[in-house]
């Protein structure tokens, strides 16, 4: 059976035009998807049943026993951390936040190690963003700053920017100018009209120089800044100021490099300067599928987008203190629930070491690096394959994903709801 208009559950583009061929409870073909989508659907190899570590060896347990044990670990903990959430749907994230409140836990999502600094900058100076549809139909200048979409969001260029014809941009490839800013040559920089190669750590200085140029202060600019000639910066500023509609997309090259949130703030302020001349927008390239949704769900329930600490009985947020990497490196949490992410692979080693020291419960369909650190793993259905739910695209548009078949695994929502019910009963609330 072929299912049309399937939403891809891999990256923040949430492409919703896939055609997926299903044979009973197996995907046997994918059309329109990129390499990442094909691997997501076709290379899907799951953990078969819940597993539990005793001493240094592993054994299979039932779902009921695993749910009981997970709830008991969380109830016994003084400072539990509930981390992950970006690979699952909004309904499950919502139960996670309520569970955190009930436990007095810290709940954090993967933006803590991707666009957390972008959110900090947006909280300082706002977000002049727009939907990807606006970009596709209107933008004649695209800037990718510290982002490599060809590797990380393979269809971003073909669906929304470089190669996507739009209502006002009839022949995108000819009419759109693409500027790439990065510290290294990438596949994406190879297709750019202008590639600005910045010295490592030089993004803030280049952003400031461009702001000065856009403000009309060309005479202040030295011949070379962070490895970039002023002639190139003048040229790029002119391209941007002459645009009818420009769109900046930035990636982890800004959020993880020296300056972090201040880099992003400077980029947003450059966008503001450009709006004195023309229309310009700026948006983060959200990576892990529904990570934007985790920010939305956390915010509408707690008021804060990530790193929310309920230890005081009310929501408290302070990046650098209540963020997962800091809590783990300080050895502060005494239990961790990991949902739909892999901190074992994606956090610094010192954090992985703490996860191995404490009871760590993982709810995830696959065996990953965190599995080896965990005490307990509960396999679940994959949202967008055998579970349905709502996810947010990188531009904040919510999209409903569907189940392609009825599988044998419970969804994240079912497992979390059962853990929540048991904790609620134990707390007598």
């Amino acid at each position, binding site marked *: 059976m072929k299912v049309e208009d399937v939403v891809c559950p891999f990256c923040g583009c949430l492409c919703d035009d896939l055609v997926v061929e299903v044979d009973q409870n197996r995907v046997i073909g994918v059309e329109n998807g990129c390499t990442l989508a094909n*691997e997501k659907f076709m290379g899907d190899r799951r953990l078969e049943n819940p597993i539990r570590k005793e001493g240094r060896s592993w054994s299979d347990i039932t779902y009921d026993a695993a749910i009981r044990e997970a709830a008991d670990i969380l109830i016994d903990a003084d400072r539990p951390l509930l981390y992950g959430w970006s690979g699952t749907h909004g309904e499950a994230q919502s139960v996670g936040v309520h569970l955190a409140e009930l436990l007095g836990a810290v709940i954090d999502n993967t933006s803590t190690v991707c666009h957390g600094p972008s959110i900090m900058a947006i909280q300082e100076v706002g977000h002049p963003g727009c939907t990807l549809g606006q970009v596709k139909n209107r933008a004649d200048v695209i800037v990718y700053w510290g982002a490599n979409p060809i590797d990380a969001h393979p269809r971003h260029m073909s669906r929304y920017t470089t190669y996507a014809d739009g209502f006002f941009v009839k022949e995108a490839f000819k009419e759109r100018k693409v500027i790439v800013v990065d510290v290294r040559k990438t596949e994406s920089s190879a297709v750019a009209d202008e590639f600005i190669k910045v010295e490592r750590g030089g993004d803030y200085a280049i952003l400031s120089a461009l702001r000065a140029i856009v403000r009309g202060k060309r005479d202040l600019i030295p011949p070379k800044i962070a490895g970039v000639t002023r002639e190139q910066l003048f040229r790029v500023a002119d391209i941007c100021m002459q645009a009818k509609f420009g769109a900046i997309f930035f990636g982890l090259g800004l959020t993880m490099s020296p300056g972090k949130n201040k880099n992003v703030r400077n980029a947003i302020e450059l966008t503001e300067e450009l709006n004195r001349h023309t229309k310009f927008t700026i948006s983060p390239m959200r990576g892990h599928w529904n990570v934007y949704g985790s920010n939305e769900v956390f915010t509408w329930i707690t008021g804060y987008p990530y790193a929310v600490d309920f230890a005081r009985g009310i929501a408290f947020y302070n990046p650098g203190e209540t963020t997962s990497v800091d809590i783990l490196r300080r050895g502060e949490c005494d239990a961790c629930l990991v949902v739909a992410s892999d901190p074992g692979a994606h956090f610094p080693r010192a954090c992985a070491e703490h996860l191995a020291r404490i009871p760590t419960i993982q709810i995830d369909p696959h065996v990953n690096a965190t599995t080896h650190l965990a005490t307990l793993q509960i396999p679940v259905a994959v949202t967008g394959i055998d579970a349905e739910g709502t996810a947010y695209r990188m531009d904040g548009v919510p999209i409903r994903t569907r189940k392609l078949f009825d599988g044998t695994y419970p969804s994240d929502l079912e497992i979390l709801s059962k853990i929540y019910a048991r904790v609620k009963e134990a707390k007598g609330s």
Partner: protein
Amino acid sequence: MRAALNTGRTIRQGSYVERKNSPAYREEASSLHMNRVDMLELEIEEGDHVCVRSDQGAVVMVACPAEGLDRGEVFVCLGPFANFLVDPETHGTGMPDFKTTAVTIEPTTAPVPAVKDLMEQCGGSGYEG
């Protein structure tokens, strides 16, 4: 040799991200992309093993030449190999310096560990199933 370690996504890393215990993922996550002249200077060839060390620890990776990198710059896709070297300090932002880790690189004949081995070095117990 001293170098600055940068990390980021690659399409192969993304392709195998849900099969982290596969040989294909290990191959991608342990590839140390470096400038050809630096490789000449270290007297190593593509596929040779190197010990990469930071103030957080050391891990064995496989050298491979990359066109887009300057001398003294190396790149490893995000994952457990790179993270063996990254400092967890976040300077009050929640975000470690994933893109700028000072490392030293030297040739070695030691084997490249599996992801499971790395997690066991962190105190975990490998799951074989």
